[in-house]
């Protein structure tokens, strides 16, 4: 057996089945909360805000809100996916199976990213009901959505492996990712900030992700698109390296 395809398939389908069983929480809840942003910031307040780079405010915030969902969902889906078997003890079965570390990661991250992309697709379609959305570079958009979903699903896997309880698992998405997205230009352009805060924002990596997606949508960005892509790939490399190192040591799982 060179590659355990059936194990990969089993974990992937098992995770997707959990998604299906909990649709209310896993799909409806993020779609509803993002729709509320569209209604409040886009339709209600948006009419009183001037256009940014020639785009109405309601349309301008769509990529940022989509990115917020992608990041939080991909992290929480995958971190929960690997943490839950650790929590209830069923991880023994995965550890005892003839499956490589790479296959385990691929299955969980693949399922986490798929769930995220499904949620993202529904949110994208929902946004069309509230505001005018156009996609200038659809292939770039799909590439960025895939890249972000897989990268942050991998990051979520890392959090799930390192966490020893539910509290630790929610710290990063709640206390780190959400503020980074909100302060990373999801609802405004960096030009609107005073110079000092603009400089501070440059240290927030999420800024580059949001701007990359906004470029794919409307062709406008605070940065060159290659800076965004490079940032994402760098983060992906960091996540892959950390996951490989930690799983090789068996950290928090095998000992």
């Amino acid at each position, binding site marked *: 057996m060179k590659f355990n*395809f*059936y*194990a990969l398939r*089993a974990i992937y389908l098992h995770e997707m089945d959990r998604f299906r069983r909990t649709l209310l929480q896993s799909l409806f809840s993020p779609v509803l909360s993002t729709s509320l942003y569209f209604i409040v910031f886009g339709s209600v307040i948006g009419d009183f805000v001037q256009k940014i780079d020639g785009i109405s405010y309601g349309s301008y915030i769509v990529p940022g809100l989509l990115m917020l969902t992608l990041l939080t969902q991909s992290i929480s889906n995958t971190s929960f996916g690997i943490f839950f078997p650790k929590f209830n*003890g069923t991880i023994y*079965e*995965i*550890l*005892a199976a003839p499956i490589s570390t790479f296959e385990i990661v691929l299955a969980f991250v693949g399922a986490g990213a798929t769930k995220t992309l499904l949620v993202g697709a529904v949110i994208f379609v929902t946004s069309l009901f509230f505001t005018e959305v156009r996609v200038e570079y659809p292939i770039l958009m799909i590439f960025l959505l895939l890249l972000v979903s897989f990268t942050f699903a991998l990051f979520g896997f890392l959090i799930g492996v390192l966490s020893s309880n539910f509290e630790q698992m929610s710290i990063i998405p709640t206390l780190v990712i959400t503020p980074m997205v909100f302060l990373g230009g999801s609802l405004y352009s960096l030009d609107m900030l005073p110079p000092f805060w603009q400089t501070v924002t440059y240290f927030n990596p999420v800024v580059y992700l949001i701007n990359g997606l906004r470029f794919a949508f409307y062709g406008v960005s605070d940065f060159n698109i290659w800076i965004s892509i490079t940032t994402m790939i760098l983060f992906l490399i960091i996540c892959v390296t950390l996951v490989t190192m930690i799983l090789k040591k068996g950290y928090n799982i095998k000992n």
Partner: protein
Amino acid sequence: MSENQITINNLSKVYENGFSALKNINLKIKKGEIFAMLGPNGAGKTTLINIICGIVTPSSGNVTIDGFDIIKNYRETRSKIGLVPQELTLEQFETVFNNVSYSRGLYGKSPNPKHVEKILKDIYLWDKKDLRLRQLSGGMKRRVLIAKALSHEPSILFLDEPTAGVDVELRKEMWNVVETLRKTGVTIILTTHYIEEAEAIADRVGVINQGEIIVVDEKTELIKKMGQKKLLIELHEEIRTMPENLSIFNLSIGHDNRSLIYTYNVKSEKTGITDLLQKIKDSGLKLKDLKTEQATLEKIFVSLVRESNEI
């Protein structure tokens, strides 16, 4: 049944907190046998099983299965093993059928609903196949764990305390399952606290204490070699005091005052039974009946562990 299937060489495990769970274990398990591992809580039984199955990384030493190293050739070794863990660790919100099918997939086997159906029928779970795990009783969940372990047709089955907390009827049923598996050539290694379980179904017994194997032997040999036997001598008349000529035998008088109890070791060359019977005759006591009672594995186990703790 003589070919060794599992070979454990100088295996040790020291956990990160410094606890030494296994100390230089050497053991060989034969193909097709039922091997029972006895030991008190914390003796290292589960750690040993978990290392062989790949759940815990050993600190030193090696284990081979059919000649394959469990670390270098983990795909070959793990696909041969089925594990029934001690805890009832199951995905509570999943159905029985899906749970078992999931395990089969993990072990690299293509979906085979017919095989899953056969297993579920064999262990009387077929009528529960669509129930979610949280709807099952503890005994039923234990059966699901067995079904999961058998889902990929393993040639080695580890049963870590398989009948802990199950009723007598289910325990007997499980023994039947084990017996059926043995007939198909599956090697079975079980850990248990129920000595009667080891006595009823095992071919060989190993006793482990404080991370060390104290003894490994054929079950019957172990009982024969190490066990003490009791000779119960029933008398026609009542006896209140021990006749003087019998004092050298360390006899005791039974509760009914109509019997004498003689304890002897079957390992000794001379049991002293002939002398004893002659002396009883000399003392004028009349024999009614003679019975012997073999020491149980439980007594042997307790004495072995006690001896090992004293060292």
